[in-house]
């Protein structure tokens, strides 16, 4: 891949013509470099490891539900990271943030990984216990869920529907937003990938009506994705964690879960952006401005992470109700204490201490490091929540009768964890070679509205907003 590129970044402003952007991005999308092959190969291998791990658990494990704890954690982690990432492009577009234009596709491309999440979710929904095992006498043993007394498989059906809705919305958003770029790639490049792109964007001509209809659809789907994102976090955290632990009734937890998703969305995009800039050669598109701006949002979300966690924790701790104290003991202060402390440091303290310094925030490495720590912290935290919840044998009752010890990962568990990450990486990398990873039409739009202007002795950036 070439290192000196046109267009280029000059004082934070992208310099070049529409043609420069088109040629550069099309060339990068059609080229398959050595590093790309290696990383894709590694992601294939990791996915393979994950599949083997899954098969080992499915066919050689016990009938115990706890064996799926790490898979539940992995799915929870992917909902928090990969499926949350499109929220960054949605937020940037909705507030017309100019700095967010080059990274919009980086964020929304993660929507396609929802197909992998759907696959990994299937065994979990099979393993999830019914609301009540005896349908003739549901009150005898009932899990406390958001579904009150409904048919015993209400969570299974409606949680699946929620995930499916989010995945469909995300993919629709991705495809509709990338039609012009796929058309450009399909017309200028050759080969199988270009022909797929051309077929997906068939008959796109860029008429004013097409742009207008597309823009309206992006706005609508963005709003619907946000709604679906919140619903899914509410349902998944309630049904696959809270309702499995007797006595855990916390209205703040699903909100905190979704908020953690927003923090991880920024972190996921930040790390991807750093990798693309550092190793992919996309230096013209991702400047300090992008890292700085996203870093500020990430800092605010890290502070909110603490605020929401503390509000949930404090209510339980202050109330001193035995059933709730048992939950605190199990998930925070005893069995999973170490995991909680690691998550607390990596999701709150470390990003705060890194991003509080403007000089560090105004770099590419500083925010990327904070983002990486957040992603590691979130994984640890999801393991704490879901492995802990799935290790409870008796989910029917009003309080925890006995607390199982912290469940350490077995080799198949570890394989499932790395496999999940590998699967997302693999899908993302494959699709990024059909749908250009840089939103060309938005980058071109940026060229229309951003320029340098002198004021006395200094130049400053002039940004136009069309509406």
């Amino acid at each position, binding site marked *: 891949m070439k290192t000196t590129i046109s267009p280029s970044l000059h004082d934070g402003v992208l310099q070049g013509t529409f043609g420069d952007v088109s040629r550069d991005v099309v060339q990068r999308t059609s080229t398959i470099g050595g590093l790309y092959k290696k990383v894709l190969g590694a992601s294939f291998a990791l996915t393979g490891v994950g599949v083997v791990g899954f098969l080992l658990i499915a066919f050689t494990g016990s009938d115990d539900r706890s064996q799926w704890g790490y898979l539940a954690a992995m799915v929870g982690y992917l909902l928090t990271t990969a499926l949350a990432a499109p929220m960054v492009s949605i937020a940037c577009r909705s507030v017309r943030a100019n700095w967010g234009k080059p990274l919009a596709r980086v964020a929304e491309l993660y929507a396609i990984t929802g197909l992998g999440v759907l696959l990994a979710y299937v065994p979990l929904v099979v393993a999830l216990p019914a609301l009540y095992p005896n349908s003739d006498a549901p009150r005898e043993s009932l899990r406390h869920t958001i*579904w009150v007394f*409904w048919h015993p498989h209400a969570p299974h059906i409606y949680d699946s529907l929620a995930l499916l809705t989010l995945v469909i919305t995300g993919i629709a958003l991705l495809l509709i937003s990338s039609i012009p770029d796929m058309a450009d790639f399909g017309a200028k490049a050759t080969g199988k990938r270009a022909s797929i792109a051309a077929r997906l964007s068939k008959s796109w001509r860029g*008429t004013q009506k097409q742009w207008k209809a597309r823009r309206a659809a992006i706005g609508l789907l963005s709003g619907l994705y946000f709604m679906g994102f919140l619903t899914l976090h509410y349902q998944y955290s309630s049904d696959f964690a809270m309702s499995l632990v007797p006595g855990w009734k916390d209205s703040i937890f699903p909100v905190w879960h979704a908020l953690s998703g927003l923090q991880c969305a920024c972190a996921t995009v930040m790390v991807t952006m750093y990798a693309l800039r550092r190793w992919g050669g996309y230096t013209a598109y991702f400047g300090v401005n992008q890292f700085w701006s996203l870093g500020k949002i990430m800092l605010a979300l890290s502070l909110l992470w603490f605020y929401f966690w503390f509000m949930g924790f404090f209510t339980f701790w202050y109330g001193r109700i035995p059933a709730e104290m048992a939950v605190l003991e199990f998930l925070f202060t005893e069995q999973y204490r170490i995991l909680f402390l690691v998550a607390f440091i990596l999701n709150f303290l470390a990003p705060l201490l890194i991003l509080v310094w403007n000089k560090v925030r105004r770099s590419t490495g500083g925010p990327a490091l904070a983002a990486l720590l957040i992603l590691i912290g979130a994984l640890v935290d999801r393991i704490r929540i879901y492995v802990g919840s799935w290790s409870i044998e008796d989910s029917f009752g009003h309080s925890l009768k006995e607390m199982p010890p912290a469940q350490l990962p077995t080799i198949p568990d570890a394989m499932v964890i790395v496999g999940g990450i590998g699967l997302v990486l693999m899908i993302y990398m494959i699709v990024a070679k059909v749908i250009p990873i840089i939103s060309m*039409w938005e980058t*071109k739009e940026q060229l229309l509205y951003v320029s340098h202007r002198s004021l006395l002795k200094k130049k400053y950036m002039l940004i136009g907003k069309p509406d």
Partner: protein
Amino acid sequence: MIPWLNKIRENVMVKKQVLALFDDAAKAADANEAVMKEGVKPGDIEIMTGCPYPEGAFGEHDKPHRVYRFPFIGALLGFSMAMLITAGTQLSWPLITGGKPILSLPPMVIIAYEGTLLGAVLFTIVGVLFESRLPRVGLGLYDDRITEGYIGLLLNVTEDNDFAIKKLLQKHGAQELKEEG
């Protein structure tokens, strides 16, 4: 002449398409204004660009779209389906617990929300495909240079005004003219 007869006459007149390519957006805007003054109707002009320009930037007439109607219809259908499913399942499995009504509203709200969302999403997709007329069988007149910053002015012209319009477009700086039909 009687208006409706005039309309029929216009429709039966042989029309062809002309695509004018401009390397400068300002020239394209001027040309668009000029052809409208020459009598070409707004419905016979399409402006093609490589990125979205603000509405009215080329002096074009605002062409309304109906994308926003689709999600409302979808949401209404999704909501109705969800209510039908939730009420249906609860009534066919009537469990009276703690004196609560059979139709328990809190979980019904969640499903109604999900159904509404899914209906709106699916109909939005249909809406954008319909309004963008995608996929079309043929691309029609087009030039790849539009993605590189050229502006395409696509006009439906008749045999009567064909020559005059092309001359006008060239006068306003059209780099190239393509014809079809």
